[in-house]
């Protein structure tokens, strides 16, 4: 028995021995597997060390969060906001966290209450969210709604903010609402809508901008985005570091939005008064006006029409029917339509200045001494130059004129005589002195180069010199003309025109003050005084009489220039004026491109607009009246005031700040225009 047991034990023991041996083999196999895996580990490390390190670092950077910088504001000289950035929020739902919350609570109250709150505040479709939760339960980023306002966000946050007072029953607080957060970003907002649209330009997202100040000062306005990122601290804990965003600089412009409003109103009035007059469309192809401080080069207003709403620049439904827009989309001309609308007429369009050039020509003569100032010229209605008969605008002839009379009556013949005296060499020299063919370097994007559309020694022959004296044959921009004219009448000082006065940090400390910059003296004080005298005569006894505002003496010069191709009766008419007459404070330049009338060759369309603008602007600027008011004047002013008052009372909300609400006022005035 004992032997049997022993035998059994031995059998088992020998089998255990077999197991032990075979396990040894298995152990060797496992060992080999480990050697193989170790070799693979070594291979991975050796081959890809740097490569994978970079990959990991790049993933980290991707994960970090950008804190958007706020684009700087643009305000006018009185502090009225022209462009600002409004906070806007995206509503984000963390689905994973929401479900985790439910799991911990053991019910679905969290999901239900959160969805209800979302629907309540933002009016979103909860079924869509439910579907999303079901499909992607692990998602941590679901955009419930884009671009909600701060007020809406605050309303939602009332659900998640515990009231300080426990007994406070008047609370929305619900502890089940969770896993919703808000992503902040900025939306550009232009409170004045269309006001100075070409001058301001627009920015669709921070960092990129088109046209005007927005584009010119884009780098300063943009600011620097901040960043929030996690890294491992010393205690192997995740630490969050935040580099705050540096908000963009604020621009204080020289623009006066009140003046701009007045200007815009009268431009628009004109456009609608002559709307569909002889051809379909507005009162002119384009109409623009710049008002400049004569003694600093500051731009107080720079307006043109047609205009557009900066908050929605691609909306052109005001000017085109839906069909037309679709056609343009198809044939690819929509972009051209946008360009035409968005570009700044005052600095980008070139045209022949016409008779507004005459004071410049006279100044050339006086400065070079080729004209003494006591000359007289006989105008018979035309002058033959190089075999061509070049007509005066008054074909009957203006008779005997002195220089003052020549300017006042805008006599082409007299100016042609003068240009002969001045000569081509002097003309070319002063063309450059007055900056024709050169940019004014105004701080706006897109000022057109004009170097190829002015004369040079090869192109300025006898005939060209004659016609150039009254502003035909070469092209200019409005900003060149007004800047040059300001120099002519302010004592000869050519100021660089500018729109921005000061650059401030977002906190308000001054980064840079932009002082008026005299580029050069173009004419002497005496010449300047004479030019003023001649130009004042234009208004008192010449072609610009319509422009005179009640109570003020002003000077100026009319201009009518036939467009190319000649002979089809299309003209650009304009009026340049300075006020007050003897010591100019402001220059106002109005250009009407092809007025919608049967006979376009009449500067009155520009002088009337100028009259309207000056009548509003001069009192606003507190420039004292120097002239006695006639009974007619008083009656006109009273009627004017009355119309403004009726317009105000017609408004639904008389308390609304009418100065701020440019569009509303314009529309009202446009409708009730009975001029």
């Amino acid at each position, binding site marked *: 028995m004992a032997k049997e047991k022993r035998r059994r034990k031995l059998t088992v023991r020998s*089998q255990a*021995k077999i197991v032990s041996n075979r396990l040894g083999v298995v152990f060797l196999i496992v060992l080999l597997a480990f050697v193989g895996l*170790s070799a693979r*580990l070594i291979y991975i490390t050796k081959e890809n*060390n740097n490569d994978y390190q970079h990959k990991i670092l790049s993933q980290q950077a991707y994960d970090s969060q950008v804190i958007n910088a706020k684009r700087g504001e643009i305000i006018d000289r009185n502090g009225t906001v022209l462009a600002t950035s409004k906070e806007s929020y995206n509503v984000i739902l963390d689905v994973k966290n929401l479900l985790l919350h439910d799991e911990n609570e053991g019910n679905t109250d969290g999901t239900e209450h959160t969805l209800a709150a979302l629907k309540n505040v933002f009016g979103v479709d909860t079924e869509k969210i439910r579907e999303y939760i079901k499909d992607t339960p692990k998602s941590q980023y679901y955009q419930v709604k884009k671009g909600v306002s701060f007020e809406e966000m605050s309303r939602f946050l009332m659900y998640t903010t515990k009231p300080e007072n426990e007994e406070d029953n008047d609370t929305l607080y619900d502890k089940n609402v969770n896993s919703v957060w808000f992503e902040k970003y900025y939306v550009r907002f232009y409170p004045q809508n269309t006001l100075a649209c070409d001058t301001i330009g627009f920015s669709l997202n921070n960092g990129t901008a088109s046209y005007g100040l927005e584009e010119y000062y884009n780098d300063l306005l943009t600011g620097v985005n901040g960043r929030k990122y*996690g890294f491992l601290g010393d205690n192997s804990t*995740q630490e969050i570091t935040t580099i705050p965003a540096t908000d963009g600089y604020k621009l204080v412009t020289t623009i006066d939005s009140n003046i701009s409003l007045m200007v815009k109103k009268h431009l628009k009035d004109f456009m609608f008064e002559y709307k569909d007059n002889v051809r379909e469309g507005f009162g002119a192809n384009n109409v623009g006006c710049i008002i400049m401080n004569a003694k600093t080069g500051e731009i107080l207003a720079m307006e043109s029409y047609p205009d557009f709403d900066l908050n929605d620049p691609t909306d052109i439904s005001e000017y085109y029917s839906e069909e037309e827009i679709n056609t343009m989309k198809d044939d690819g001309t929509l972009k051209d339509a946008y360009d035409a609308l968005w570009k700044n007429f005052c600095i980008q369009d070139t045209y022949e200045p016409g008779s507004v050039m005459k004071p410049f020509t006279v100044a050339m003569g006086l400065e070079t001494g080729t004209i003494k100032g006591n000359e007289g010229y006989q105008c018979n209605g035309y002058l033959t130059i190089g075999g061509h008969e070049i007509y005066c605008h008054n074909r009957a002839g203006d008779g005997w004129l002195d220089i003052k009379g020549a300017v006042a009556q805008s006599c082409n013949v007299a100016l042609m005589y003068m240009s002969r005296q001045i000569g081509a060499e002097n003309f070319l020299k002063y063309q450059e002195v007055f900056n024709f063919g050169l940019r004014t370097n105004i701080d706006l994007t897109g000022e057109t180069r004009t170097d190829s559309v002015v004369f040079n020694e090869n192109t300025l022959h006898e005939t060209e010199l004659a016609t150039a004296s009254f502003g035909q044959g070469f092209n200019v921009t409005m900003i060149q003309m007004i800047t040059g004219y300001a120099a002519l009448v302010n004592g000869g000082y050519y100021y660089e025109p500018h729109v921005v006065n000061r650059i401030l940090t977002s906190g308000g400390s001054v980064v840079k003050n932009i002082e008026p910059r005299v580029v050069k003296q173009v004419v002497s004080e005496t010449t300047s005084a004479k030019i003023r005298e001649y130009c004042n005569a234009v208004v008192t006894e010449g072609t610009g009489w319509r422009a005179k505002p009640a109570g003020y003496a002003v000077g100026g010069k009319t201009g009518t220039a036939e467009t190319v191709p000649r002979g089809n009766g299309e003209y650009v008419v304009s009026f340049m004026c300075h006020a007050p007459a003897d010591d100019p404070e402001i220059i106002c330049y109005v250009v009407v491109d092809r007025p919608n009338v049967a006979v376009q060759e009449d500067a009155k369309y520009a002088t009337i607009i100028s009259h309207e603008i000056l009548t509003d602007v001069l009192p606003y600027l507190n420039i004292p009246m120097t002239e006695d008011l006639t009974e007619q004047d008083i009656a006109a002013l009273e009627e004017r005031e009355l119309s403004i008052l009726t317009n105000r009372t017609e408004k639904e909300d008389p308390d609304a700040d009418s100065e701020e609400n440019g569009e509303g006022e314009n529309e009202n005035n446009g409708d009730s225009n009975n001029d």
Partner: protein
Amino acid sequence: MENTATLKRKKYFDFTLLFIVLFLLGFGLVMVYSTSSYVASVSSGDDFAFFKAQLRSIIVGLFVMLLAYLFPYKYYKKFAPFILLASFIIVPLVLTPLGGAEGETINGARRWIFLFGFSIQPAEIVKIAIIIYSAALLSKMTMKERQSLRGTAFILGPAGILFLMLLFITTNLSSAIIVFGIAYVLLVIASKKNIYAYMLLIGVAIVGVLGVIMIAKGIGSSIWGFRGERILAWLNPEAYADGKGFQVLQSLYSIGSGGIFGKGLGKSMQKLGFLPYAQNDMIFAIICEELGLFGGLAVIFMFVLLLFRLRDIVYYTTDLFGSLLVCGVFAHIAIQVVLNVAVVTNTIPNTGISLPFISYGGSSVIFLLAEIGIVMNVASNIDFATPNVNYQETIDEETE
């Protein structure tokens, strides 16, 4: 005889084994904290959340290990059929309310049962059950029976059923592979030459290679489903970087970026939410990132030591059932470590498998420690006076 009796009374305790296991557990705790603190602090605000849970499991596990150490292993042999039966019952329990209400599953898979506030993975119980069952049955069979088709079927049959149950009920391929692998290894170890087992291995290998080739060539893609995509992601992880290849690619980034000595303990960047399951299945990748190639190889070396120690115990164990139990534990740990490192290094297709003793996971640690307890109990019966090594002596006695 008298000599043997005194030796038996003085029980052997394997301090080396205990030390290796405690070292792995301690190292695991450090790594679990390192890998999970960020994710834990973000999701629950307590960066120690995972660490605490793991520490609790380890304490429970050590207690279970002590119980298993004190419990004479010979009794398992009697209960083996019941233990197997229990594991057949316990797997389908995940489908009952014990497995949690509809929609309350963890990570979308039904792999847990909830009992008295604990969540247990039946797969871990099944692993122990298959070890005990296979060891008991094999130790009862004669060598001839073990090598017969019938004997093979008795071992691999239940293992195969459990394989299918785990695969289809809990959708847990890796546990299914481990369970079947344990039974297979025990069968091969216990028999001198089992032709059926070898044929099965060759068959599986051929089917596997053909399957991979077919999937790579895009044949019959509708049959393979998401596992097919897993194979494709394995062959070319960059091409599936947004889907199935993401985890393994991130894992390779971690290993590759670690260099020879790593970025330093706690300095992994991949654990900041980039490498999914960094504290579970992918913990080895973070070890390589933080401690480098050196750290990774050192961990592998510790497992080699552990396995060597188990082999040693088998070497000195004279009882067949006891040595087969230890072999089963050996197989379990070896398969799991090899598969885990192979997945992390993209040597085989990705399947969720944890690193024994180190990865985060309560069930896994507790049942592994129970297995270690059983091993210790087996080891305590080692009779150094009559080791089976002394083959010559045994033969002599037999011929006597």
